[in-house]
């Protein structure tokens, strides 16, 4: 999924982290030209990352993209309208849990993946040695949104194909093709790591209260910022600057 699609889609960023931080945390700069006149600004850095279920600001992501390593390119098909959100009830179409229904808990748009609660388990063996057989770790494997799952119609709880349509109010909704019923985007989609609903956010010590943020203190005035501050502080400037030339 590309950035423009991501902005246009209804998918919310669960981590609630600023995208500058996400970009900064995964950056791997190998060489940067010094900021001197005789250098053109050039950067040699990692361009292609392998996105997995590990989010890009974590240490596991870095471990999977260690500096200097090259991994094969993964082909990700473009998706115009992202249609699977956290909290959606979906039906699995492949694998051991084929035909079962579950709730989407995590969405990974970098790979067109979703993770469904309690379905499509896979098992990993870690810590195996000569004497010790190792420990089995169980976790949900991701499912591909275009091939492996389909949405569940809320009217009869059966899997269905759907289409994005517009309501008379101009809102974009998913409509079940079998029953024609609207499949609403679940409220869970708006949850973030910091709060369940925006109203339930607990203010921290350094947060400015909402009322203060919304207060209008601006007064239009014929002066620059600096002139206004100087007036406020009682600084008077009576010298006139000498004529200068910009070239």
């Amino acid at each position: 999924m590309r950035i423009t699609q991501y902005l246009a889609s209804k998918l919310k960023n669960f981590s609630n982290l600023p995208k500058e931080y996400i970009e900064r945390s995964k950056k791997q700069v190998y060489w940067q030209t010094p900021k001197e006149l005789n250098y053109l600004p050039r950067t040699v850095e990692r361009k292609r990352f392998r996105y997995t279920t590990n989010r890009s600001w974590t240490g596991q992501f870095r471990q999977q993209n260690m500096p200097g390593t090259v991994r094969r390119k993964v082909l990700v098909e473009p998706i115009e309208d992202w249609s699977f959100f956290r909290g959606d009830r979906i039906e699995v179409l492949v694998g051991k849990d084929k035909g079962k229904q579950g709730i989407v808990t995590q969405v990974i748009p970098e790979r067109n993946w979703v993770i469904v609660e309690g379905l499509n388990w896979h098992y990993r063996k870690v810590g195996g040695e000569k004497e010790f057989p190792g420990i089995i770790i169980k976790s949900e494997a991701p499912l591909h949104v275009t091939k492996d799952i389909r949405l569940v119609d809320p009217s009869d709880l059966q899997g269905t194909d759907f289409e994005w349509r517009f309501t008379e109010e101009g809102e974009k909704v998913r409509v079940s093709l079998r029953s024609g019923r609207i499949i609403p985007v679940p409220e869970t989609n708006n949850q973030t790591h910091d709060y369940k609903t925006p109203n339930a956010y607990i203010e921290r010590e350094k947060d400015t209260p909402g009322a203060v943020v919304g207060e209008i203190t601006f007064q239009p005035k014929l002066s620059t910022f600096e002139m206004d501050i100087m007036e406020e502080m009682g600084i008077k400037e009576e010298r006139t600057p000498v004529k200068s030339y910009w070239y």
Partner: protein
Amino acid sequence: MSSTLIKCFNLAKAAGNVTVRRFLAGPMQSWQACSALALQTPLAQMQMHTSPVRRDLMEFFDDKKNWSETEVKVGRAWRTEELRIKSNKDLHQLWFVLLKERNMLMTMEHECNDKMETFPSPERIDKVKISMENLETVVRERNKAYHLLETGETGERPQKPVQNALGLKINYKTCEHALPPFMNLKWIKSRNIGFGGRAVNRFLLKYREKLYNAKRKAKNRSRNEVMMILRRNPNFDLGVLRRQFPDVDVEKLRNEDKVRGHYVPKVGV
């Protein structure tokens, strides 16, 4: 919340002339309130968060109770539309609150690296940075509006696109001089405007070839990507591909050998 209030009351007692009423007034709309950092105003304006002024080196460090935390939760950064409704004085004060916070965070990050600890919630640095950038944007907007109204110019440092000694287009930021250009002999001697010569032309030829190659490779890459998508999904929506890869002729690619999969197509299924 309660500890903050108690702190405010204590400060109010100390200052004597403070209206704490404004701090209490109105419901706290948390969804708006997620600003990373509060205005640390003088006591006369108590409506925003203040921390006790210590005026020692420990102001460069975070609160002691955050030292061993793995996560320090804060709200989001200030947005430009929120800053546009604030007075110049508020913005001026907010700038220094943010600056102090940035100093504190960078000190903490350095100290954590030094002591082999994890720096909790490093995204706070980015939130402060975004707030400061937005604040600067708003101040520049205001100054630009004043200068345009009074002088018809933006009042910003003049810039113009010129070609440097290598024949490349650069953005030349002009400088302020006491003398006009025709009198400034030192500047006339030092400046190196214009380009020419065989070496420069040869350089430009190779430079343009490099740019062209980058463009050509990008085009080939997207062409290959379309072919691989079509090979894996023969029934992929061509309209989507056309919109996503506007420089690729999708219709022409459909008959390419690379698009055909390595399997015998099923007939009559």
